[in-house]
């Protein structure tokens, strides 16, 4: 029984805090390591502002990775939209996961009798209603806005300004204590050219969220769902130009 159901179990981060911790641990750590990789070439330790920008950029990259992979994760029975965000918007798992049709589970079908199977087939055919879709989009929109705020914050921090709406952010973040300290340490520091190289791939997240907003937060839009396909096929030229521009200091990797 557990074997059959394991394939469609839904994994949800119970709290946004958990999601934030995941982004910090899995993605911000990688950017911090990239900064350390650059350190011998520069001949100095990374500035405090770069560390703080890595924290924000890690959130944007983490959210982009999780949302972009929604379809691939769904095949594994996972969904990374936090539970509290879904509840706040009345969004249902079905509406977020579904593009075209509900997931099928043949092992489970075989275990059910005719009557139940009929009932399930009927429900599978039911389209997701407009209001369900709206709720799902609202939940995605909330994550998208959060990521865009993190991008704006990373951009501001690398320019030596405080993140926009700092006080509000401190109220909302579980890490308020250390965050306030590092923000104070980072204020006024500008992250210069060699360190910026560690942030180049963040441009992909910025492009992703811009595109997601343009497509009305529809995760399953064909332009936004290349997760089984290799990423370099996804709008390669704008990204390459952006990365080059950011490397030469002509553009910010955190904006589109």
């Amino acid at each position, binding site marked *: *029984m557990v074997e059959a159901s394991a394939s469609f179990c839904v994994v949800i981060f119970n709290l946004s805090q958990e999601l934030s911790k995941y982004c*910090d641990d899995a993605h911000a*750590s990688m950017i911090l390591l990239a900064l*350390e990789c650059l350190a011998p070439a520069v001949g100095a330790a990374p500035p405090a502002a770069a560390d703080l920008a890595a924290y924000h950029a890690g959130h944007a990259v983490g959210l982009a990775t999780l949302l972009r992979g929604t379809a691939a994760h769904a095949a594994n029975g996972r969904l990374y939209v936090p*539970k509290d965000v879904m*509840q706040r918007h*009345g*969004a249902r798992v*079905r509406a977020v996961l*579904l593009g075209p049709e509900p997931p099928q589970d043949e092992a489970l079908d075989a275990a059910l009798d005719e009557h139940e199977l009929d009932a399930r087939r009927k429900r599978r055919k039911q389209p997701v209603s407009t209001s369900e879709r709206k709720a799902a989009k609202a939940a995605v929109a909330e994550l998208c806005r959060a990521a865009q705020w993190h991008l704006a914050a990373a951009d501001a921090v690398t320019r030596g300004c405080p993140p926009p709406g700092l006080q509000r952010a401190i109220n909302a973040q579980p890490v308020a204590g250390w965050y306030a300290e590092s923000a104070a340490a980072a204020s006024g520091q500008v992250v210069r050219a060699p360190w910026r190289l560690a942030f180049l791939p963040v441009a992909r997240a910025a492009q992703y969220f811009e595109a997601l907003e343009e497509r009305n937060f529809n995760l399953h839009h064909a332009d936004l769902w290349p997760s089984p396909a290799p990423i370099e096929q996804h709008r390669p030229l704008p990204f390459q130009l952006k990365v080059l521009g950011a490397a030469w200091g002509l553009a910010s990797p955190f904006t589109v």
Partner: protein
Amino acid sequence: LRQKDYDYWLAGLLMPSKARRAFYAVRSFNVETASIVDSVRGNVIPGKLRVQWWRDVVHKCYTDGRSDLPQGYPVLACLADAVATHNLSRRWLDKSLDARERDLEIDQPQSMEVALSFCTRPFFVPGEYDLNYGRSLSLVLRRDF
């Protein structure tokens, strides 16, 4: 790395050559550990063992046991070099492994919950697993749409 993580491969090309090797090692480490979570279907034990293997070898990279490192893992060899030459912080590598492990663990209570609801509700339909507990709250917050 070019196939699995194109964006970072491209960024690495623009880095000074001193940094590039270490950067690629770190990114390859990330690709390897991220693929553990993606490759797990249902049973998380093999995934946990692989995370633990990485934990052990990272520990060996930082202690003097570098000669005991298992042979035949190019990513690991590059990572050990990067750790030695670039003084990478062990904390970030460990945190990243923690995140992967939590990602694996999070599977279990949920699958139990779903398994239980499957046992007790005859008409349970996968994909209709309803999380709509907070409808009254959501009505207030939906005005943007």
